[in-house]
């Protein structure tokens, strides 16, 4: 039960073990107290009355929630569809031999990475008068596409230089070197990072709520603010939050699984060692 390879603590002896066990019980007590307080408050404020949970029995409410979930996934799907090519395009641009192309792509990528996503979404929604869904998708594409462009670029740059030199020595052309030699090797190493960035995109679809896009959170708000159901706010949260967190967790686990698989695979080990620096996705969300 020791923390592996930590510089902080020694391997505990019998006395320390007893002490740790005591701390463990105390911590458990404290956590139980907090959980107990929350549960008490839930009952105290009468969150489990039939009236508050009744709406979930209605077909219309269920359909509203499902439609919201569908819209969330739709926005996510479009974002993935647009952001990946956007990222690839601008990564290629930043790796270009032509200074002008490189410069333009750098400015675009850096700008969209530095802007708060919500500012872009509001700009597209308010100033360009785009419909909410497309404002959301466009904002998400610009932001996540730019982050992905950096991920792609770092991945391609992390492929050992010898690969590129060998490919040129064989007489391959610039595009061929990129398409047949660098990208396939970079791809395997980048995949976990790309998926983690998609988790960020999935989380950020909830920003659509703020521009009245009828996504999952929006559906929840509609139910939660309905006086007929006695404002079932907490029940709505108890339904919505696990779904959101579950979806993101699944995708995160998928990324972790890809990473572990990649680490085991001899292909990745022999090919492109991933440079972790600069490859971590932005903790935006």
């Amino acid at each position, binding site marked *: 039960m020791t923390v592996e390879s930590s*510089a902080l603590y020694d391997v505990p002896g019998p006395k320390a073990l007893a002490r740790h066990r005591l701390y463990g019980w105390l911590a458990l007590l404290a956590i139980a107290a907090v959980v107990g307080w929350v549960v008490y408050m839930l009952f105290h404020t009468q969150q489990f009355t039939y009236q508050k949970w009744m709406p979930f029995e209605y077909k219309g409410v269920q359909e509203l929630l499902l439609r919201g979930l569908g819209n969330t996934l739709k926005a996510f799907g479009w974002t993935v569809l647009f952001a990946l090519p956007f990222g690839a395009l601008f990564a290629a641009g930043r790796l270009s031999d032509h200074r002008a192309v490189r410069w333009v792509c750098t400015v675009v990528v850096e700008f969209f990475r530095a802007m708060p996503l919500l500012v872009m979404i509001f700009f597209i929604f308010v100033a360009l008068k785009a419909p909410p869904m497309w404002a959301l998708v466009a904002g998400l594409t610009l932001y996540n596409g730019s982050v992905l462009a950096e991920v792609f670029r770092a991945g391609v740059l992390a492929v050992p230089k010898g690969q590129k030199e060998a490919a040129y020595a064989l007489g391959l052309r610039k595009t061929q070197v990129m398409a047949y030699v660098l990208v396939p090797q970079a791809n395997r190493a980048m995949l976990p990072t790309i998926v983690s960035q998609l988790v960020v995109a999935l989380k950020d679809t909830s920003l659509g709520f703020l521009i009245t896009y009828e996504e999952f959170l929006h559906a929840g708000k509609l139910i939660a603010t309905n006086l007929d159901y006695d404002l079932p706010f907490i029940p709505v949260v108890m339904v919505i939050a696990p779904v959101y967190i579950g979806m*993101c967790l699944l995708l995160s686990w998928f990324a972790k699984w890809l990473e572990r698989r990649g680490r085991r695979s001899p292909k990745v080990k022999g090919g492109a060692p991933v440079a972790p620096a600069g490859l971590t996705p932005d903790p935006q969300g």
Partner: protein
Amino acid sequence: MHVLTDNWSTYWHGFLGTLWLTLVSAALALVLGAAVAGFRVSPVKPLRVFGTGWVTVLRNTPLTLLFFIVVLGLPRFDITLPFFTFAVLALGCYTSAFVCETLRSGVNTVPAGQGEAARSLGLTFTQTLGLVILPQAYRAVVAPLGSVMIALAKNTAIAGSFSVVELLGTYRTLNELGYGIVWTFVWIAVGYLVLTLAISALFNLLERRVAVSR
């Protein structure tokens, strides 16, 4: 240009709101993040499990949902606080998960031999931590912590939609006054750029200060 000069005080208030929100949330996130990181590396299992749960859940929660829960949910528990405090709570808790992971990976970069050597010299736990491990971990932490803080500054934009005075929210006022929407947003964008560039400059400075060739 006149959009900015005419509405200087509106922009200034918004900018100060964003700045203040960033600073207070950053303080909360650092304190909470450090505590949770301490939990996650401690030899006490319940604390480790709690820390892991905290980080896993918060990292996979959309920030908008968290705002939704805090701003609209806590009042159901008869906890009514100013909107600013709610926003700080949401932003601080959310960012604390990222801060925790940064600090934890910083501590993990210190080789176990360093701690062993310190203990064999007879240093106490506090001394080992304060004189040997943290100074080394600190160096590995500065740069990633900078990106976490920049992300936090950008995330404060969400607070504007939950009744907090901040920079993005100023567009509503100016829109009602009939100013050109494009220029309104240009100056909002400039405000955010100033803030994020300042944070990144600060952390670059810190990084150069603590950089040691190892």
